[in-house]
């Protein structure tokens, strides 16, 4: 088991390495440079420019710079923002918190509504099933940016229940301002998770081992819990992991729409300003979060299914 974990973590590191290289190269290849953004339309004398470039370490060639950066990261130093001169870690901390709160909130919604409705459809065939299936099918086609617009229009402008812009103050205010974004973000994923849950649960309900349990007089809640849910869970957990992991990147759309100040917005502005270190760090964080969430999902599956445990060993 530890062997498996180590192997996965190693894979994660390699992925991060490659991803960071890809990101580094892409930003490097992009036209323009940070000092151009800094100076704007009134560039100072060439000597001053040269000094700034040296100060910002933009002089060395790309490979050297990459290795330098890599070395720093491994010791915990994410570098300094070229634009604000803040340590990058500090620069991204706040936005990272916003994004992760948003993803967590959306994730909870997905679990409750996605898994919940999928189970409902599976356990109550007939009209309930048909209704739930219709709703979830439409949900899988409702992108976050469309949902955002609709939600703002109805719940902000018309009803005034939620703010349409900015992050509120205090826990209550935060929760309120994150609600519409979380809902918008959660819609497609909820639809997909509901579909998988329904299919998986239905398959289990029809399985012979459920019949064995029924024959032994096991019924009701115990039957559903021990024999349907437990067995139906693995594919649902896997899809959940995949979807929530995808939310980390997908959050950029709602962050922009609702002006939340999360990682996505920061990424876009940093990219436009050629703030390499910040872009690197955000990319790293996003890829790491993506991989870790998928790993977590796989570990949960192993917890539930002894065959998966055996296969991994």
């Amino acid at each position, binding site marked *: 088991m530890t062997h498996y974990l180590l192997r996965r973590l190693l894979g994660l590191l390699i992925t991060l390495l490659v991803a960071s290289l890809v990101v580094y190269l892409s930003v490097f290849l992009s036209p323009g440079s940070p000092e151009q953004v800094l100076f704007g339309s009134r560039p100072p004398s060439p000597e001053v420019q040269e000094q700034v470039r040296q100060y910002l370490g933009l002089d060395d060639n790309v490979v050297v710079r990459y290795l330098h950066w890599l070395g720093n990261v491994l010791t915990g130093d994410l570098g300094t923002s070229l634009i604000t001169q803040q340590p990058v870690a500090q620069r991204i901390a706040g936005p990272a918190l916003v994004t992760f709160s948003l993803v967590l909130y959306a994730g909870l919604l997905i679990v409750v509504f996605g898994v919940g409705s999928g189970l409902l459809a599976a356990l109550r065939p007939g009209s309930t099933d048909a209704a739930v299936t219709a709703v979830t099918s439409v949900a899988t086609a409702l992108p976050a940016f469309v949902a955002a617009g609709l939600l703002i229009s109805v719940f902000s402008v018309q009803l005034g229940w939620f703010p349409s812009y900015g992050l509120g103050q205090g826990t209550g205010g935060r929760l309120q301002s994150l609600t519409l974004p979380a809902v918008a973000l959660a819609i497609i994923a909820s639809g997909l998770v509901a579909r998988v849950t329904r299919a998986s649960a239905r398959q289990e309900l029809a399985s012979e*081992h459920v019949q*064995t349990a029924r*024959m*032994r007089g096991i019924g009701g809640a115990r039957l559903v819990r021990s024999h349907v849910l437990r067995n139906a869970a693995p594919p649902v957990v896997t899809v959940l992991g995949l979807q929530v992991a995808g939310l980390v990147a997908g959050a950029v759309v709602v962050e922009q729409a609702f002006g939340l100040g999360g990682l996505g917005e920061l990424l876009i502005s940093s990219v436009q300003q050629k703030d390499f270190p910040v872009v690197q760090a955000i990319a790293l964080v996003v890829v790491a979060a993506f991989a870790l969430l998928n790993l977590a999902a796989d570990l949960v599956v192993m917890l539930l299914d*002894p065959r998966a445990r*055996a296969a991994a060993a």
Partner: protein
Amino acid sequence: MTAPLLEIDELTVDIADVPVLRGVSLTVAASESVGLVGESGSGKSMTLRAVARLLPEQAVAGGHVRVAGTEVLGLRGDALRTHRRGLGMVFQDPRSAVNPVHSVGSFLLERARDSGADLAAARARAVAVLRRMGIADAERRMAQYPFELSGGLLQRVMIASVLMERPRLLLADEPTTALDVTTQADVLALTEELRRESGTALLLVTHDLDLAAAVCDRIVVMYGGRVLESAPAARLVTDPVHPYTRGLLASRPPLTHRLDEIPVVPGTPLSAADTGDGCPFASRCPVALPVCSQSLPETTTQGATQVRCHRAADVLDGSLDVELPLRQEVR
């Protein structure tokens, strides 16, 4: 004469308007073992499932199924659960019938846990039954998962799980078909031993006539959703009455000597949906008369034997010899 433990009376089952059972009647007395024999499509598994109330959702059942006098077909909820607790069912494929995510021990003790019984006692009982079923290191097996056990071992576990509750009636759907021959014999012998000890009746569904003859007191032969013949096992095997039964027995290649040609029953087995109102076997029967495809024969009884055949009388008094066409044996 005491009432039989299981009484099936003109049971019909239709699934989505397709007939599967067209009036099945049979009885199983307490502690008796009955073999339900037939080829695929005969409806034998469906009969078993009707008793267990495990019919598919779109199935509509008619007729009567009584266990210890209680009508089973209309039961719901708690009454149904109580009915099932008096039964035990063993399925053909243990891999799909036993939940793969629970350990063997957890599986065996589930019933006890659900009813709040004494777990320690149940555990001891479980281990004891596993040992009786020929599983030597029973304690170790309790902690293992189904995928770690071979098919034969897992089937023994399933049978153990059923017998340990001491049901009145054991329903077995081809329990050993998926096992190799030596394991089959062993598992059946052990099951028989335990069964006799606890006085459990058995309704065994199989396509293997020899197996039924070896294990059961009585054999019931099904074809096309109906019962064609029912007789004590020894009698049926040596002196079958129904042309179909004769065909089944005659077409088995013998183990003792070589044959150049074996008798065959021409055609392929039909299900209830493919047969009309007359005798389901009429289309393939070597001694069929026009009346056979027109009307369903009545049941002729002679002693402990019951036959549904228009020509039963002729066969019984010896005036008709059922001749089967011969076919070249393929070497």
